[in-house]
């Protein structure tokens, strides 16, 4: 077994563009779940409208990229309003069910033959981010120490994505420690108390849902840009589940929680993947037990086990405080 390859795979994945994109999407989810106590199980839906907003504007209608970015953000705002208007006055469970259903409904609509002229149906859309790569100031080639090397293209996406993480993180930190943030957190702790102090809880929840959704949409755009393609099947509800996993891992209700969580999540996932494959090819694990094609499924089953154990034994994650994470349904 080649341990240096395993470790370098894991490192590359832990600091790579995908980790940054998931960190960004989870920051939006953190605002919902960690700070406001909103159970959004459809963050992937916001990523979808963001990615498709950009892709459709550029690839289907030949529009400029900045318009696509605005379009994606506008779609996320509309989606948040559509989801929030009926459910935010109700118990937390209703938002949970509605968001997971809405995310899946969007995916079904975008992949349907009916929407194919605009969204490309099951084939999705490709090659719409050339303007983004045209801005790349880095000379072609590979960069990085030891085996952890990135192409100039990946490096450019990484720099932008991590910069966005930094900016959004600063913005959220300022917001959370402002009076607005105190109201948001008081809603999480005790909604009735916040309401009795004269706060319009519904409006605050809605603002949180919209803002977190927009952050999710920006993450979706970066994801679409990174692979230069959008495909409906990349937006299945599993993505939201992974976002929850890394959020709980890092610590919900902490600004750096999703960042630490995402880095660790992708590091561990990649490590497992690489290590399992090598163990199978070196026949430490019998191929009859797990074949290489099943490695993907096995590591996701392990993610599920990790999630159960985390919530059971360390619900506050790595950075969180236990007191803040003993939430109950409202």
């Amino acid at each position, binding site marked *: 077994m080649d341990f240096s390859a395993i470790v370098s795979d894991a490192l590359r994945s832990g600091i790579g563009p995908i980790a940054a994109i998931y960190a960004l999407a989870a920051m939006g989810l953190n605002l919902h779940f960690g700070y406001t106590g909103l159970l959004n199980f459809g963050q992937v839906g916001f990523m979808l409208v963001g990615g498709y907003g950009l892709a459709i504007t550029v690839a289907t209608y030949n529009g400029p990229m900045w318009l696509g970015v605005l379009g994606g953000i506008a779609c996320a705002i509309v989606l948040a309003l559509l989801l929030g208007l009926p459910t935010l006055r109700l118990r937390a469970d*209703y938002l949970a069910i509605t968001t997971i259903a809405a995310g899946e*409904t969007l995916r*079904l609509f975008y992949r349907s033959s009916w929407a194919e002229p605009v969204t490309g149906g099951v084939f999705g859309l490709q090659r719409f981010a050339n303007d983004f790569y045209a801005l790349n100031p880095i000379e072609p080639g590979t960069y990085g120490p030891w085996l952890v090397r990135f192409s100039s293209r990946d490096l450019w996406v990484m720099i932008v994505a991590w910069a966005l993480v930094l900016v959004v993180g600063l913005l959220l930190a300022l917001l959370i420690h402002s009076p607005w943030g105190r109201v948001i957190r008081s809603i999480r702790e005790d909604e009735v108390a916040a309401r009795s102090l004269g706060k319009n809880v519904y409006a605050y929840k809605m603002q949180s849902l919209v803002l977190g959704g927009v952050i999710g949409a920006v993450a979706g755009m970066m994801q679409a840009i990174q692979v230069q393609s959008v495909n409906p099947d990349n937006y299945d509800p599993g993505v939201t589940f992974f976002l929850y996993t890394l959020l709980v891992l890092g610590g919900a209700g902490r600004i750096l929680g999703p960042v630490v969580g995402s880095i660790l999540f992708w590091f561990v996932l990649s490590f497992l993947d690489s290590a399992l494959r090598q163990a199978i090819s070196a026949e430490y694990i019998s191929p009859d037990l797990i074949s290489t094609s099943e490695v993907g499924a096995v590591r996701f*089953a392990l993610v599920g086990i990790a*999630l159960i154990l985390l919530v*059971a034994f360390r619900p506050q994650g790595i950075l969180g405080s236990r007191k803040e*994470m003993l939430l109950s349904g409202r």
Partner: protein
Amino acid sequence: MRYQRMLVPALALLFVLVPAISARARGEAVPRGPTFGARALQALIDGIQFGVIIAITSVGLSLIFGTIHLINFAHGEFVTMGATFAFFLNVSAAGPGWHLIPAALAAVVFGALLGGAVDRGIWRPLRARGTGLINMFIVTIGLSLVLRHVVLVLYGTRPASYAQYDIQSTIDLGPAGITPRDLTVTLLAVLVLLGIAALLQKTRIGTAVRAVSANRDLAEASGIDVQRVVLFVWMLAGGLAALGGVFFGLVEIVTWDMGFKLLLLMFAGVILGGLGSAYGAMVGSLVIGVVAQMSTLWFPVDLQYAWALLVLILVLLVRPQGILGRAERVG
């Protein structure tokens, strides 16, 4: 709020009229094929059949919610586990090759044991630790990931059918038709639903389940063993989910992610009927099944599940407590 009462009939009318007019406009271009009435009847029959299968699986989901207020995101995986377990006994080369009927019964027992094991192994310790409800939701997500990918490893991605009752000729019912298999499944499902209703109304354990749903603390104070009731609900839910999985695999096909697709329709049915109400789940699921199938009369087939989910959002706008839910404060 009076205008909201008008909203439902108005939307229902819109749902029927607009497409009907456009279908008539299109109808002139399409020369032959069954008449609209025949297609509507066929879709209604298919919808009822689909609806009762969803109902069987969603009753358990609703009972779990009623007793411990937990939304079980892993419920779809219970369905898949049941269907694939029966597949293993029935078809798989490594399995014993049983006939489908004993295989289905074994799958129901397996589902019940799985439900019981999950309650004893995960939920009960978590309840004892005082884990918050929201964290419990996340645990169900973890459980769903584990079960789904275990099925993926053991079963694979290839869709397959059971060995028996695969291809049948239809019985003509006037302009529409149904295969003996589908008719049997529908009737069996209705019988099972009636059985659950009788169980909830007539038996001691059923009364206890309803008591715990209505007011857990009061039920506990009047001497009901809540932990036992919860265990019973989990086993019942697991068994029903497995049965629904076998039925769905029989009339459609067995796949590794079939349960997750059904889960969203179950959610829609459960909310439509009223969260936590077993009878509401039955009625709501029936509506969802019919809506999903009837939508194919006017809209592309690949959108049929999406309409059912849109109905869910519309219902929340107008009547969040659902059709049969208690009109208590839900916010």
